[in-house]
């Protein structure tokens, strides 16, 4: 790629200001590189890696917006590097590429997101009702499946976690599971076949009360999942119904 790009007439170059460093600290470094029409930020990072900085650390995988590996902050906005076209950025200014802020640094653009994988394990797993038919299968209508399918589009890029102030600014990682896992919990709670109850856990150990529905998560979701309105608010309503309904409270006392 290096050879072909320098031998062709190029529309131009762009300046990339990339954060380099690790858990002990770091800073921005500037790289100028040639750009082609249609290029995305990840292409530019790869070109810089191949031609100027072979040890530049970047996590990526499918380069098609399907795996959610290459999350970063581009000009301050949480985005997937593979789905951010240079054409949508102002190239008169340096393009600033930083790792996600809500997770500890490993190196350069790579952060330690392992917390997310530990959190998932704490959420009660899917527990289906008895099969509807003798052959062990179920019957579900598309209309009942639709709303859960929206949640299951999640590619686990963790950009919603990155932008959530409860995690990013208040570091409540031990008390709050974050928008990704409210979406996960909602997908289970609203699954037509599921029978498990996660409402007590959502209230207590998953800390849903910390969310004050600023919708930042929904705004950065690359899959356009309506996180706040379709997942978190209905879960909050279930918690309220269960624990804060005055009639129910009275019933509990009696």
């Amino acid at each position: 790629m290096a050879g072909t790009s320098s031998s062709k007439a190029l529309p131009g170059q762009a300046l990339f200001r990339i954060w380099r460093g690790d858990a002990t600290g770091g800073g921005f470094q500037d790289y100028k590189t040639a750009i082609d029409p249609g290029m995305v930020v990840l292409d530019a990072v790869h070109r810089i890696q191949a031609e100027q900085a072979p040890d530049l650390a970047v996590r990526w995988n499918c380069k098609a917006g399907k795996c959610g590996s290459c999350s970063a902050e581009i000009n301050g906005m949480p985005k997937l590097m593979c789905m951010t076209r240079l054409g949508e950025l102002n190239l008169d200014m340096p393009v600033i590429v930083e790792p996600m802020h809500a997770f500890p640094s490993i190196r350069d653009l790579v952060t330690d997101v392992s917390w997310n994988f530990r959190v998932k394990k704490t959420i009660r797993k899917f527990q289906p009702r008895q099969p509807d038919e003798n052959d062990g299968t179920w019957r579900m209508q598309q209309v009942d499946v639709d709303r859960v399918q929206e949640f299951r589009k999640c590619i686990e890029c963790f950009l919603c976690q990155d932008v959530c102030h409860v995690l990013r600014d208040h570091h409540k990682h031990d008390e709050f599971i974050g928008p990704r896992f409210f979406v996960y919990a909602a997908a289970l709670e609203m699954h037509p076949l599921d029978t498990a109850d996660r409402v007590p856990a959502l209230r207590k150990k998953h800390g849903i009360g910390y969310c004050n529905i600023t919708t930042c998560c929904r705004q950065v979701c690359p899959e356009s999942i309506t996180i706040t309105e379709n997942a978190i608010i209905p879960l909050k309503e279930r918690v309220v119904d269960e624990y804060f309904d005055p009639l129910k409270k009275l019933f509990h006392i009696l």
Partner: protein
Amino acid sequence: MAEYQTYPYDVLVIGAGGAGLRAAIEAASTGLRVGVVCKSLLGKAHTVMAEGGVAAALANVDDRDNWRVHFADTMRGGQYLNNWRMAELHAKEAPARVNELEAWGALFDRTKDGRILQRNFGGHRYPRLAHVGDRTGLEMIRTLQDHGIHSGMEVHMECTVLSLLVDSGRVAGAFGYDREKGHFILWPAKAVVLATGGIGRAFKITSNSWEYTGDGHALAYRAGAELLDMEFVQFHPTGMVWPISVRGILVTEGVRGEGGVLRNSENRRFMFDDIPDLYKTQTADNEAEGWRYTQGDKNARRPPELLTRDHVARCINREVKAGRGSPHGGVFLDIAWIKEHIPNSAEHIKRKLPSMYHQFKQLAEIDITKEPMEVGPTTHYMMGGIRVNGDSQMSTLPGLFAAGEVAAGLHGANRLGGNSLSDLIVFGKRAGEYAADFAKANAPASVDKAQIQSAADEALAPFERGAQGENPYAIQHQLQESMQELVGIVRTEGEMQRALDVIDALWKRAAKAGVPSHRQYNNGWHTSMDLKNLLTVSEAITRAALLRKESRGAQFREDYPDKDPAWGKYNNVVRRGGSGEMIVESRPVTPIPDDLKAIIEEMK
């Protein structure tokens, strides 16, 4: 002596896509200690990119479907070089494996009566692909991941295996490093399942993710196992061609399944011009019939756009070479035209093909509900791989199992779309089950420290050469360019001989690869470690393709353009000779039992 951490397991699974996770779930269900090693984060494996669906003869949409039809379709698609036993087991067991996913939480699209919906796909006689819009792979991997994390398996994320350890003729475990810190790790194991996927990164234009560097193929080969059918690399007919930076990204066959048509620059549906004899009776000969088929008319035959991938890819290649291509060197794939038949077609397309709509809108600024896409062939899938026993999935090296794309046999000379997701769960389960049996029946093998030391020394050598060494990215790029140009969709003796020369030269350069800095998440170092695997599989593909002097399935030889019945009786096997040389030889295809032969005849 190199420093390393040790994690012993009964069963070690390398790879955490559909096959690896399914194998690990199965092995863990027996109560054994099971470890999973994956190069990426959990849930990011290439399975996530599968779009169209998972093939299983559930007969939910067309009650004429059953395992016998699916078996015959798979064998026909593979040009009868398939391992018949795998094709039989796959067709019989896929429905149970798909239903099992539903029991684990997967939510497939539904039929009107509430069952799993199935769609049409190339080479499948009836609508057979259970799907979730065009993100079936994501649904599958997430289901297996979310189920698997509660099954007791231990996952080692972002680790690369450098070599398999062998002890007196059986596998003894694996040695590698974690990518985040760069520390070495030893995984002693009684049985190892390879589920590492494919080899697409050996080519320049590919739909495959960076992980597809042929690790499992090369690890098994170096450990002494045999590879099979390595000449058969599937070029998917429809990848994006523009912009350049997204060239190769997959455009699902589901677009054609939903009624999308291929046209050349003269606006002609060129697929009607060339229908192979093997498929003549099953293929529509006019546009109206083709459309009716995509809309579920049981009396209509499939449109020629849904012929097998090898054929469609070659037809596109021919149109482009003849100067009838699209502006950026592909052809046109048009789904927008269905507005002639379907009211509110834009909404319909967005619902049926949401990822495709999103992908073109975001990466190419094209609205597929209004205008045609430009598409061309892209390296997509490896039919060839580790030679395994059809029932157990054990390779020729005792204790070493393989499942999914890294294993060969099910697909023969060409894979049908949808048969890979079902491959993963059918043979992932089998590999996990039989690996667990092997682990129970055998004592731990002993680990040879010398093998570990030599792997560690080799891994650290690039740091000694430092930035003065050869640039690993440059070597990888040149290999990709050469394989694309010389061993791609159209092959000749002369070009492939040149490819061998290039590979030979690149082996020498790879031995001098150098990287600066340290071991912590160093992509340059990771790339230098991938080179050996990429070169091994590239050489195996080229040598096997040279030996097969005919055109069949995915292999098209311009110098031998016809199918040769004599070659239909042989599979090519690749193995490592005593002095490290690569040996390629033809072995007779295992004869098909009469009852299965009768099914094939009946379905012709």
